[in-house]
């Protein structure tokens, strides 16, 4: 098993005819994901390498049975694209688009909270269950099928962590990039809960960063609900306070936003802390070795 995406995933690509959309749709197909449809308004009837393109998500779902969507639609229209997918019956929506106005996401996230629909992102790299399915923009060949779940607030730092695991022969069940925006659909706790239930996942690597208090909430969940070991790294311990470091999320606000506070909370909850971003793989290896 794995979480969220697998061989049953039937993927719809919103914004499939754009530059990024077409490039990464092809990447998903090449990885083995069942890409069943694309949507670009007014491009209906065309196709991308044989994948039919529809004008609306409603039509795409009706004709192809798509159950998951990945959104590459430009920021001004991305909130609308997510809402369309939700209403058309998509149960997992992965939004890659960055730069969506925060108030658009307030509306979207409030609407989705009243349903069972899960949103990953926005401003995220997507997710992958190695060997089964890729719904994202990551380079598939750095991943290896296995039993470690990975969940991260950062895109490229996830790739870094995963490549360390793969080089050590440690495979992954599913890797989820949550996204760096102030308002995201899915947080650490949601994904930890899924990994805890997933029989294939033996341990979880959690990658946090400065800003907000998601890591502290994850720590509470780890302490109360996780039986599986969690290896954690928090980026930004060298960041000067008060400066914004790129991600809207990566700004230190108050003491709870600091890396040191997050690391302390995670350690106290029983997570094993990787001392350096270059030691995420080796720390995981040690944890796995001590269990077998």
């Amino acid at each position, binding site marked *: 098993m794995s979480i969220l995406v697998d061989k049953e995933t039937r993927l719809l690509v919103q914004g499939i005819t754009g530059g990024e959309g077409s490039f990464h749709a092809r990447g998903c197909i090449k990885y083995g994901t069942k890409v069943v449809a694309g949507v670009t308004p007014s491009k209906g009837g065309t196709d991308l390498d044989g994948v039919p393109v529809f004008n609306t998500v409603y039509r795409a779902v009706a004709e192809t049975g798509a159950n998951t969507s990945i959104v590459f639609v430009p920021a001004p229209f991305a909130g609308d694209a997510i809402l369309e997918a939700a209403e058309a019956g998509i149960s997992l929506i992965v939004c890659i688009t960055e730069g969506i*106005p925060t108030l658009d996401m307030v509306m979207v996230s409030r609407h989705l909270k009243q349903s069972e629909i899960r949103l990953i992102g926005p401003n995220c790299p997507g997710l992958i269950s190695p060997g089964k399915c890729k719904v994202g923009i990551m380079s598939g060949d750095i991943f290896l099928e296995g039993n470690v779940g990975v969940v991260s607030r950062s895109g490229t730092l996830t790739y870094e962590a995963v490549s360390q695991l793969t080089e050590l022969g440690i495979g992954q069940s599913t890797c989820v990039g949550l996204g760096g925006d102030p308002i995201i659909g899915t947080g650490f706790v949601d994904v930890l809960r899924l990994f805890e239930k997933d029989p294939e996942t033996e341990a979880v690597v959690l990658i946090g960063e400065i800003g907000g208090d998601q890591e502290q909430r994850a720590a509470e969940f780890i302490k109360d609900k996780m039986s599986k070991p969690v290896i954690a790294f928090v980026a930004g311990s060298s960041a000067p306070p008060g400066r914004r470091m790129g991600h809207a999320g990566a700004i230190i606000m*108050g003491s709870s936003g600091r890396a040191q506070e997050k690391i302390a909370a995670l350690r106290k909850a029983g997570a094993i802390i990787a001392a350096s*971003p270059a030691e995420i793989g080796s720390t995981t290896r040690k944890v796995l070795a001590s269990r077998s």
Partner: protein
Amino acid sequence: MKVHEYQAKQLLAEFGIPVPRGGVARTAAEARRIAAGLAGKVMIKAQVHAGGRGKAGGIKTVSSPDEVEQAAKGMIGSRLVTHQTSPQGVPVSAVLVEEAIDIERELYLGVVIDNAAGMVVIMASEAGGMDIEEIATTSPDKILKAHIDPALGIHPYRARRLAFDLNLAPAQIRPATEIISNLYRLFEAKDCSLAEINPLAITSDGRILAVDAKLNFDDNATYRQRAIAELRDTEQEDPLEVDAKSKGIENYVKLDGSVGCIVNGAGLAMAVLDLLKQVNGGAANFLDIGTLNEPDRVVQAFRILTSDPDVKAVLVNIFGGMARVDIIAQGIVAAANQMVIEVPVIVRLAGTNVEQGERILNESGLRLTRAYSMQEAAQKAVEAVKKSS
């Protein structure tokens, strides 16, 4: 994006929130003219994008037009240093001249995004004034909160409840309810990320008005808030960061080390900073090159780093995803062709299209130090700095 107090107050007034009478002046003579039209004591306030103005001498209360002119002369054209600015301070190009308000009570009113709840939250407190941040940490129960469902928007009963909980006099409930509702409407209509009135003053004659105000705006919404974007004052921002933005690099922060960094993704960029520190080096900057697949973006990043005298080596660490490594490699080659790079350049590439990227660098004949892990890259960068110094 931030705006000046006078601009924030103009927006508040547009949305029906009472503010003190007065106007903005760019010369001492203008300040005097505005003061002459106001009765009684006058406040003169330096217009800068930083807090802590009062303690830094950026706010003065005076009694005559002569004193206004004098105070304005001292402020306009100077630089104001507060605990929120760099030691160089920020330039004062304008002052706000206002009627001084006889304040009886100071309330706090703010609207922000609550990330965890995914909603806009209105915050109000009886304990307004300078110590609000301390109160928020020491006694959070003194801050009243109302989360607003975006589908419902603001309704009078929500604002009214806050007004009553602020223990206002009966005659103040209606104006306060309107101020609260209107601040939320402004926040939503203008894509704010913060709308704050502190203090929201109750005067000795029972009026309620916004004595100081701060509005920040969501940079992602600039495309639909053209009028707000016009209010940007780049003089108030760090010149290096303004220059980076003009070159298409949105996320550049100058730091005090000597390894210039070009990284994709904020998380990885922060991790590179952390790692440099652990191998006894230091980053000269944070630079997230973003995901736009355009070689010129890399060239511009090199331009920024090579113009920084603190940079003794450049570390390029790219893990391609949305960003394609081959395009980054083209950018590195283009940068080397377009400018003289005198410092050693350490390159570590991985991810999407890495084979093509490696081939481009190998065929370029450039003298680059190559690394194949971030640890190796960080160590080689720190060694290169040591050798050059």
